[in-house]
């Protein structure tokens, strides 16, 4: 073995990178008051707390069914609204269909929607619509536009220009070209992504519920605030079941429709 191959000079660049990264992580941990002793203490406290959560208060389960249903309904309303508007934003933001000023406006709005987490959107909307499921629906719909609008816009830009030309060549109007050449090509991926977004919205709505949008998240938060830990366990397990079921349903539907397992 030639030890000269392992000279520090040869690996100097990697060593510098690892050293800088380590210093940054240590500095950040110090600023965030990360302390191994606190971690150990926290684990100890947490293990003691586990006892309060079990056994679950299964008598509270019937009371969780309706909030769980509300969570599903919030997503059932928000996702199609978001998907419908994402088509409009996607068409407006596609390079091959829209003039530069419209494309820039649409893409900027989509970027803002994507940049804001749903919880921030909800806090902004609560001022206008008050607490409750409606604000949750609006927040999730706007969040869905951010994600789906970008995917639809990108999918439209990938539609073969020759396909659009061939429809235009029969004397079709611009809207007919969109209807008969563009939408058929992007709709399957929009449906697949919308089903996936429904699954994402279920998870997000639990969090939104905790800050006042209603549903199972609200029940979980209320139980924790009232120190009813065994009731909170039932809410958490119901949430877990809801997320699991929505994931399975999403995978099943996309597979059944031949749209692939992962979002495009």
């Amino acid at each position: 073995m030639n030890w000269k191959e392992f000279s520090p000079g040869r690996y100097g660049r990697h060593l510098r990178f690892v050293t800088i990264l380590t210093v940054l992580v240590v500095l950040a941990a110090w600023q965030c008051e990360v302390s191994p002793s606190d971690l150990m203490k926290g684990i100890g406290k947490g293990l003691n707390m586990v006892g309060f959560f079990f056994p679950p208060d299964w008598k509270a389960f019937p009371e969780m069914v309706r909030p769980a249903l509300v969570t599903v309904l919030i997503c059932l309303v928000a996702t199609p609204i978001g998907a419908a508007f994402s088509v409009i934003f996607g068409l407006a933001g596609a390079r091959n269909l829209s003039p530069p000023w419209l494309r820039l406006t649409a893409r900027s709005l989509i970027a803002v929607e994507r940049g804001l987490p749903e919880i921030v959107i909800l806090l902004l909307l609560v001022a206008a619509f008050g607490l409750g499921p409606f604000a949750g629906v609006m927040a999730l719909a706007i969040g869905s536009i951010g994600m789906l609008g970008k995917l639809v816009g990108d999918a439209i830009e990938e539609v073969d220009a020759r396909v659009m030309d061939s429809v235009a060549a029969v004397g079709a109007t611009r809207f007919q070209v969109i209807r008969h050449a563009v939408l058929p090509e992007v709709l399957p991926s929009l449906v697949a992504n919308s089903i996936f977004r429904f699954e994402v919205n279920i998870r997000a709505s639990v969090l939104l519920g905790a800050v006042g949008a209603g549903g199972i998240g609200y029940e979980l938060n209320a139980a924790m605030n009232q120190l009813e830990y065994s009731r909170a366990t039932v809410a958490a397990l119901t949430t877990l079941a809801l997320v699991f079921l929505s994931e399975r349903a999403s995978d099943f539907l996309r597979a059944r429709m031949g749209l692939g397992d992962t979002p495009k």
Partner: protein
Amino acid sequence: MLEVRNLTKRLPDGRALLNGLSFTIGKGEFVALLGASGAGKSLTMRAIVGLTSVSDGEVVFTGETGKVYRTTSTGAKDLRRARRNIGFIFQGCNLVRRLSVLDNVMIGRLGRIHPLRSWLYGFTDHEAQEAMEALDRVGMADFAARITGSLSGGEMQRVAIARAIYQRPLFYLADEPIAALDPKNADVIMRLLQPLSRENPILGAFHQPELVTRCCTRIIALRKGQVVYDGPPCLSPKEIAGLYADTGGVTSEDDGANPVPRPMDYAVNWPGHTVKIAAECSGSAGKP
């Protein structure tokens, strides 16, 4: 019927892609547009259907009622009216792959039905029946319900022809319809196009001289955006090679012995002229 007058397309740097192209195509003609890649064949077709703008010149054709259509220097509405009378057969990839074969054929009528009706996909039973008849004519009726993306290249090209037939155009443009096909499928497509040309003329871009001399009634050869030959298809392989030469009308291997055969020595006076041309040639051109 179709008149192309002084068609010119220049780039901003002044280079001409089409340089004063002029020709007329009449009833019953099956005209092959020949030329090397970059000679301007596809650009000519796109300019005729108004998919690309031109710097100068015009494209004019007349409908059965005497109405004159233009695809150059015209408004969007008039351009759409003109386009619905042109059956443009692209290379296979022009179809909407996720739609059914029948849906793709029905697209051919979009220019003739109200946009709102087409948005709601409100085609009538009669229109669907006509689309099926067009599919039947190209031997694809059994494939009507199939998703277009699942078809082979040759099958897609037949669907594209069915769409053009269903459109009921005044003439057809076929932009390299057999370029991506094997010889057997290429022959099938040419056998479909040949009888169509007797009903409505066809201008097609090809790269298969042997098929062109057998099936077409006339050749227009382009070089650097100019017509260098316009005449009967009864050309020898050497003469055809001359059409593909870069400059001067000579092939590289023949060293001056193979001039371009008398360019521009052919004019069309339709109708009926094509029969005469075919008779002057080997006797096979233009016949099924």
